[in-house]
Each structure stands twice: as C-alpha cells, then as structure tokens.
C-alpha cells in the first residue's frame, strides 16, 4: 500500500534511527583507543595503552569480580523464585492468581529510586541488628528482587506454549511429581531458563540505581564507573571499562534472543 517514495523515506528514517542509536556507542569505543588523556574530539591517534592499564587496575579487577559475584547470586535467587512463581501461575487456578504477574513486575515498573530507597530502609532496620551490613549480600538481594520478573516471564511464556498433556502422560506412565519435573518439565523449560538467566545476569551486571542504595562500600562495575567519572585522570580507563561493559552485555542478550527463537523439544519434531 505504501508508495515508492514512502518506502524509501521509511528506509532512510530507519537507517538514521539506527545511526542515532549506535553512534554514541561507537564514539565511546573510539575514545577507548585514544592516545591522549584529554577527552577531545576528534581523537589524536590510536593506542592500546589504556586497555593494558585497565586490565591491571586493581579497582577495576575488584569491581568486575564483585559484579560477577552479585550477578551470579541475584540470578540464582531469581531463577528459583521466578520459576516457582511461573509454575504456580501456569499450572494451577487459585485466588489472587492475576495479582502475581502484577506483583512480580512491580519492582521494575516503579522508579528505581523507590525500590532502592525501600530496600535501603528495610536492610538498615532488619539486617543491621543481625550484623549484616550493606555489601555484596544486600546487592544480591536487591538485584534478585527486580530480576525475578525476567525469569518469570521467560518461563511462563515457555510453559504456555508447551502442552500440559506431556506432563500428564509422564504421570500416567508412573512417574511421580519429582520425576515428572526432572525428566519432563525441566528439559521442556531448559532453554527458557537459560535465556532468562542470561538476561537476569545482564540486568544485574548493568544496574546502577538500586545498587547505589544497597551497596555500602562495595563497588560494582557501574558504581566504579560512576564514582570515577568525576576523576579526569581515570577517564581513559573508564572508557575502556565502558566499552567492555557494552560488549559483554551484548553477548548474553544475543544468546538469549537466539535461545528463545527455537522453542525447545516440542517444535523440533
């Protein structure tokens, strides 16, 4: 229905939008190879010096380890909780079923600052009397809270597409609840679990707002970048860390989108 001119116009607009989205990321990538310490455009020459410096920077190394630790913990918690909730919502009818989807989305739908503040106040009053201060554990708990939705949505979508009958068939053949879960439900949802886990990991690895309220003295990678932005000396290293962060978060997202395209054991037959 679109005229030729409309088609060409739309194609040009699409390319311009893509350029708008990717240009800033490209520019920061170039700065990571900038020869001079000052952030002037155009850059004066290319060097790999900052990559070496960043690699040997103890602050960066520590932040990367902390981030991985926090993201693994948060992903593990979210994986269990999100999957349990998805199984309950998809397989059973019960009072308040509709509210669960809403409840799960809430931590990510409300402004990050609200979630951050709420958790901060609670940790301070509930955990500190037990001697648990702000640190890696509170980061994990905070991240897990808003990562649950990613797991939940992925698993729920997979369960909706797969047939209930195979689980019933498994039961009819004599498998109990555990065996059915182990040999039928789990293989059925495996790729969805993996995709959700990758996304939860990426979400946690990049998060900064809730983290500022729950981290205490611990520095995750985004927090390290945030504090070092005000130190002009550190900016060349910040550039390198920034580019690595973009590249690293692209991998799980790409893999997750591939995993959810082919839909488990039912479609392949």
């Amino acid at each position, binding site marked *: *229905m679109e005229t030729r001119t409309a088609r060409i116009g739309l194609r040009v607009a699409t390319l311009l939008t893509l350029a708008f989205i990717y240009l800033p990321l490209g*520019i*920061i990538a170039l700065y990571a190879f900038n020869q001079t310490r000052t952030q002037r455009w155009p850059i004066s020459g290319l060097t790999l010096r900052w990559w070496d410096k960043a690699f040997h920077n103890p602050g960066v190394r520590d932040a990367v380890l902390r981030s991985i630790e926090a993201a693994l913990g948060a992903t593990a918690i979210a994986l269990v909780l999100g999957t349990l*909730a998805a199984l309950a919502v998809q397989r059973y009818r019960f009072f308040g079923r509709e509210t669960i989807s809403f409840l799960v989305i*809430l931590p990510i739908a409300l402004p990050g600052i*609200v979630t951050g503040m709420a958790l901060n106040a609670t940790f301070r009053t509930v955990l500190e009397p037990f001697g648990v201060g702000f640190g890696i554990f509170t980061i994990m708990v905070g991240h897990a809270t808003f990562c649950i939705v990613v797991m939940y949505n992925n698993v729920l979508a997979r369960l909706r597409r797969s047939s209930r009958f195979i689980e019933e068939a498994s039961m009819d053949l004599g498998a109990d609840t555990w065996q059915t879960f182990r040999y039928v439900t789990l293989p059925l949802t495996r790729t969805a679990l993996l995709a959700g886990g990758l996304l939860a990991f990426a979400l946690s690895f990049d998060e900064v707002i809730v983290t500022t309220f729950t981290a205490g003295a611990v520095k995750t990678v985004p927090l390290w970048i945030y504090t070092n932005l005000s130190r002009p000396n550190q900016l060349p290293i910040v550039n390198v860390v920034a580019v690595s962060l973009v590249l690293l978060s692209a991998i799980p997202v790409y893999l997750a989108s591939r995993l959810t395209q082919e839909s488990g054991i039912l479609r392949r037959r």
Partner: protein
Amino acid sequence: MTSIAYESPPPRRSLGRRVASFLYRHPRAQVSLLLATPLGWLVIAYLGSLGVLFAAAFWRLDPFTANIVRDPGLQNFKTLVENDVYRSITIRTVKIAAAVTLTDAVLAFPIAYYMARIATPRVKGLLVVAILMPLWSSYLVKVYAWRVILQENGALNWALSPLGVHGPGFGEVAMWLVFSYLWLPYMILPLYAGLERIPESLVEASGDLGARGSRTFRSVILPLALPALVAGSIFTFSLTLGDFITPNLVSSVQFIGNVVYANVGVANNLPLASAFATVPVLIMIVYLLLAKRLGAFESL
C-alpha cells in the same frame, strides 16, 4: 495385570514418593509450596519495604535532635506543595518526561513501521536484535557516552562548528536529548509489535475505499497502533520520572530523584525523601490507570 498388582504386597515406598503422592492428591499444598518462597520474598521483603517507606512519608524529623519522630502527619507533603523549589522541580521532571515521551513516539514510528510492514522477515529479525542489544546495554555507559559527546570540546560541537552552530551544552536540553536516546528502544519494540498485529486486510480495505496512504495512516493505522504507543510511553515516562543519574551527569538542574537521593544520603531526612518519592509513584499510578483505559496493557 492389575489383578496381580492388587494381590502382591504393596512395594515399599520411599519418602520422596510418598511426599509426591501426597502433593498429587492435594493440589492446594502444591501451589502453596510453589508460591511460598517467591511470594514470601516479594510480599514481605518488597511490599513490606514499600509499606514502611510510605509510612515514613508521614513521619517527621525532629529539628533539634535530627531523629525521626514517628507521629503521623502531613507536614512533609505540605512542605512539598508550598516550597517553590520543590514545586518547580516536580514540574520540570514531569515536563521533561512528557517531552521525552513525545519525542520517542515520533522517532520510533518510522523505524517500527518499517520493521513491521516493509522489511523482509530476515531483515526484521536482524532489526529486532539491533534494537534489543542497545536496550540491554549499560544505562550508565550510554549516559556517559553522551556526556563525552556533549562536552565543550566534544564530538557534537565539532560536528556543528562548520555550520556556525554551538551545541546545547549541559542542561535541560541535554537531558531531554539523553533521555530520548536512552528510552527510544523501549518505545520502538512495543510499537513494532503493535503495528505488526494490524491485519493487512484492513489496510487494503481502506485503499479499496479510495483512501490515499496518508488518510489510511491517519484513520486506520494510527488508531489501531495507539494502545501500543501508550504501552511504550509507560516506559519512557516512568523511566524518566524516577531518574536521578542522568540529570546529575548532563545538567546542573535537579529532578525529583536528585532531591530524594540527597535526602536519603547527605541530609538524612528520610521522611521528606519518602514523601517526595511518592510523587512519581502517584503520577505513575494515574498514568497507568489512563493507559489501562486506552487498552495499553494488552500491548505490553
């Protein structure tokens, strides 16, 4: 075969098997078991925290001891309404959130339309991934990239200098630009999904009835895409409303989030911070109710 099974003594059943059959006979127990941890977490840890936060909005700070006094009152909200600074910060936050939403709607339409209705399936798949990846890549890095681009000797001023124009520098315009950049993918994806759902037959019918492209767009496509547009706007609006890092990095003016952050940390006035934090939440609740009436929830 069944008769043999009845005659032979029942096999010894393991504990796991017995629990499994108990659960099978009691679906309610099964649901409770599944939901206990996730709901315990979300209701007690999260909703409980939110509850405490909103209760704190009604407390106040003793001006002499700086301790929190827990007798409920509306004094924090009174301060927010009466104080010019807080009022102008609220207005600025909402104004920029609205501007960003509008900008993203305009920017997202052509590319979403192209993805949904013109691109071949292969290109479509590539474009979805191309929009998805920057959506998930680090928020902070994107803001930082713009900070580098917008600074005095940055790329933007360099690109504009042959034209004799100077870039916006840091400030409200920079904020508008950066927010529009940050949340653009959040608008493109729901809009693309919404446009893709429009049946081709309706567009053809419109053409058969004599409507030109622009008329079809106005009278058929736009109304049908509206719920998706509103769904996308929930993200662009809400994410801008609650932000405090972007204003901090690319401007020297404050958002609601900056005041909240300062009052949780340095000023240590939790009651006032809580009260101010309820403002974006209330605005979002009203926004969500409106969005629900426009059918946006089906497009999420």
